[in-house]
């Protein structure tokens, strides 16, 4: 999988194609897949037969690991985090994992402290506080 350059999420070396693509949080994927599954249910009697095994496994996974269930909340979470200078990848990892402290956040997304942006601990703590507030009001 290493192309010309070694891939490494720690330093956000994930290739231009993925840096520019839209990342999806587990909850967003869950909404998309459920929508697709409902559409299949309308079209055929046995939707399970129509989907691939990887789709089924992925649907189960995102349902199990979704942090937010409400689509409006998901939208809000994205807006809150986009105010800070984050790449799509970092934003989604933070939303998926919901770290409690700045130290935990940096352990999960080491690139927060690199890439020339050097988010300070206070900024990261504020980000996480905003996230947990949204969760409380879901």
């Amino acid at each position, binding site marked *: 999988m290493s192309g010309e350059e070694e891939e*490494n999420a*720690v330093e956000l070396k994930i290739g231009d194609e993925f840096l520019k693509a839209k990342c999806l*949080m587990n909850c967003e994927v869950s909404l*998309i897949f459920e929508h697709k599954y409902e559409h299949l249910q309308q079209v055929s009697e046995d939707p399970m037969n129509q989907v691939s095994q990887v789709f089924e496994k992925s649907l189960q996974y995102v349902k199990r690991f979704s942090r937010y269930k409400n689509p409006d909340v998901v939208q809000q979470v994205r807006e809150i985090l986009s105010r800070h200078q984050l790449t799509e990848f970092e934003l989604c990892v933070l939303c998926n994992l919901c770290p409690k402290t700045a130290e935990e956040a940096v352990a999960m997304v080491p690139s927060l402290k690199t890439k020339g942006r050097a988010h300070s601990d206070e900024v990261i703590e504020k980000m996480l506080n905003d996230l947990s507030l949204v969760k409380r009001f879901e």
Partner: protein
Amino acid sequence: MFFHMVLERNMQLHPRFFGRSLRENLVSKLMKDVEGTISGRHGFVLAVTGIESIGKGLIRDGTPFVTFPVKYRCVVFRPFEGEVLEAVVTTVMQHGFFAEAGPLQLFVSNHEMQDGMEYQAGDIPNYTSSDASVRIQKDCEVLLKITTVSVVATEIFCLGSIKGKYLGLLNDRA
């Protein structure tokens, strides 16, 4: 990590599918061909969500088939080295445990666990910490970091590690 991307594919269609439902036939063939496949570059292609564009069809020399360049939007799952993600333990063995994160299979070797984790054989094989506070067994949720991503033919397999301060068994979340 899940991504929403625009990919391109040249779809071949036999003239018997032309006519009013040409586009529908093309789209359903695309979905059949592409959903559930794995590519080294894009990872697991899980679902086609829409069509961006369908180019002009060109007849392939010497055959009746027509090739249409199709751009489509889809959800893919692509693991990256260094990525931290949640997974579900599927099998526990002496050398380590297997886990699944969506379509992806991962293996965490016993060398990549916190010090003190010991394998316990039995009806429910598991890994228990020395102070018995942590027990990792089938169907447990763990937070792990991907250390290696390997693509062999059309299979993607990853090695992971739970040797880190915040990695390992996930307790019941609030």
